[in-house]
């Protein structure tokens, strides 16, 4: 899917966009519905998300993110804008005050992390409990305290599961980074 997104960015390729839209729009829709909004609102946000994908594809950096990860960030931000009526503060990669990585090419050493396939394999290594906390947080958009209530476990347990899951992902992907 990342190749299609690159084609949209480079050539405004309508067929490539159609492939992306057919794959991702039902999935992004399900994500937005999970986050508790009425259908009309969901369609508005969904159209907004894909208008951004179509018009801002030139901002996509395939060395930094998979197409899925990039589309996830757009959907996440639009949902915050629309449903919570909040701004989403983000750092600006063009900001002169941005602290660059002092190691030459250092920011590129993490490319392997973005390969969705690698992340998918790594997610499968996690325990069911760890994966469930990540899913509730990233997919359903539940805060840690809401997850604690929902699963009937202490807040500290939710946090430690998320932390352990992330540490495990780092290790799994770190060790795989050598092989790629």
């Amino acid at each position: 899917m990342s190749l299609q997104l690159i084609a949209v960015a480079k050539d405004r390729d309508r067929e490539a966009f159609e492939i992306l839209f057919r794959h991702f729009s039902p999935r992004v829709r399900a994500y937005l519905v999970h986050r508790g909004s009425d259908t009309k609102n969901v369609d508005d946000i969904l159209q907004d998300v894909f208008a951004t994908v179509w018009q801002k594809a030139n901002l996509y950096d395939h060395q930094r993110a998979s197409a899925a990860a990039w589309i996830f960030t757009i959907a996440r931000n639009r949902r915050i804008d629309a449903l919570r009526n909040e701004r989403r503060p983000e750092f600006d990669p063009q900001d002169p005050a941005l602290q660059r990585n002092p190691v030459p090419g250092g920011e590129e050493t993490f490319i392997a992390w973005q390969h969705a396939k690698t992340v998918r394999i790594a997610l499968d290594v996690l325990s069911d409990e760890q994966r469930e906390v990540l899913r509730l947080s990233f997919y359903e958009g539940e805060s840690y305290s809401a997850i604690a209530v929902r699963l009937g476990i202490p807040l500290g347990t939710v946090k430690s599961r998320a932390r352990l899951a992330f540490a495990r992902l780092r290790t799994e992907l770190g060790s795989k980074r050598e092989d790629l």
Partner: protein
Amino acid sequence: MTIKHHVGDDLLLSYGAGTLDEAMSLLVATHLALCPTCRADLELAEAVGGVLIDRTPTDTAVDEAMLEAVLDGACQDDNAGAPALRASNEALVLPQPLYNYAGGDADTLRWRSAGGGIRQVLLKTVGAGTTARLLSIPARKSVPRHGHRGVEATLVLAGSFYDRDAWYRRGDVGIASPEVVHRPVAGPEQDCICLAVTDARLEFRTPIPRLLQPFHGI
């Protein structure tokens, strides 16, 4: 510049998932501007979000009309809120997006006294009970001893402060959990400018600051 104190996985993961409120998101985003290490971690977190969306089974039909509408540009992406890029030769204290929230760099803001020589600028954010403010603490001065009902996160932007056996410098984040009672002190080299975000009001442990009206906002 080497950052020693990072925002930590709890805040970084919640920011990646989009579940933090606006004030705490502002602190994380500002730290990210100053910390390449955490930017790499955020990319990993967002890759997780991508995989979770990608592997969702779905039987919903594709909305053909929406596909046409998007391709025909019926829905223009609204770019009105995008800030103009700043000149690259400026030595700025406030990175984006903090600069936009404050409405300028540190030396152009309308600082108000918070008592004890400390000055502050309140930042407008949405979110129940959470506040974001810029604090300017004179060199060698301390913030009155206080405790917390919630979490207090402090990101250094200029100068430094010392708190509970550690020094915090530009980009570092100090996190005080609800049980912490502390009295941070600004370093001697210059006034310490920092972004402080609290998710509940601070509780002062000494009687004097209670009388200082401006401090009651903290």
